[in-house]
């Protein structure tokens, strides 16, 4: 069994994943939230530009990427669950699937970015695409950092699962789920709303 202690999640100082990770999550959500509010203000000033530019985005790519991240999040939740049960092989399997989901997201995002750059819709094309590039690239940075964290956790799980602390593993999982949460805000507002 992984190195566990009984955590009282109902205690305000011990939310699942740890209080520090949740402070980071709220800061990230507020940061992205403020940017999205500014984007909405810009859309009000230039409604035609935002509507026509939004139609240039591929909604199918956005929806498929949502499925990749949600499925990856499901795998991560299962991985934590099996680690708590002491089933290390299943935990590793689901962690690998989680990382695969992250890479699929990045691959499709790469295809999308390549298409936009080929068509000339770069960051300076108009104000909509400035927001599109800044917000989605900032999110991609989070996904890349999340994958690195999962690789480090996976390494600990492979080498010495007995000493792996469940709180640390939960914190890694919580960071990964944060990438889902941010994308669930970005996808409807950038790809569908304007």
């Amino acid at each position, binding site marked *: 069994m992984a190195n566990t202690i009984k955590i009282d*999640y109902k205690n305000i100082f011990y939310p699942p994943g740890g209080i520090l990770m949740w402070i980071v999550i709220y800061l990230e959500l507020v940061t992205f939230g403020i940017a999205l*509010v500014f984007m909405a203000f810009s859309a*009000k000033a230039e409604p035609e530009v935002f509507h026509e530019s939004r139609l240039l985005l591929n909604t199918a790519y956005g929806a498929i990427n949502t*499925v990749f991240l949600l499925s990856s*999040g499901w795998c991560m939740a299962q991985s934590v669950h099996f680690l708590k049960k002491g089933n290390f092989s299943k935990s590793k399997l689901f962690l690998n699937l989680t990382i695969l989901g992250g890479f699929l997201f990045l691959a499709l995002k790469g295809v999308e970015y390549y298409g936009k750059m080929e068509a000339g819709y770069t960051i300076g094309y108009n104000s909509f695409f400035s927001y599109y590039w800044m917000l989605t690239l900032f999110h991609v940075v989070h996904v890349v950092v999340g994958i690195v964290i999962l690789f480090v956790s996976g390494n600990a799980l492979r080498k010495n699962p007995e000493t792996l602390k469940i709180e640390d593993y939960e914190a890694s999982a919580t960071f990964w789920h944060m990438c889902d949460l941010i994308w669930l*805000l970005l996808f409807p507002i950038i790809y569908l*709303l304007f």
Partner: protein
Amino acid sequence: MAYVRLNLAVAFPDNLFIILTMERTFNITWIVLIGLTILTAVFANVEMKYIAIVILGLSVLKFIGVAFFFMELKKANVFWRVLLVGFLGLLLTVVWAI
């Protein structure tokens, strides 16, 4: 008794019900989230007066699904739950109102 005498009894862990319930919760959450994503994609192509509210409403459900079930925020202190739902409600209301 025969099961015990012949050593056929199966020892179930005490928390088996909790384990099965959690796995089922994750699976149901995933199915609902994928369903909501498909619904969002369908609604995105529909011309409707209040389509923005529908799209934002569906994203609220997905957000809560991930936070409460995958991240297990449902087990956390009410402070963290209220803070997250409050932030989400405020943000999407502001975006919609603008």
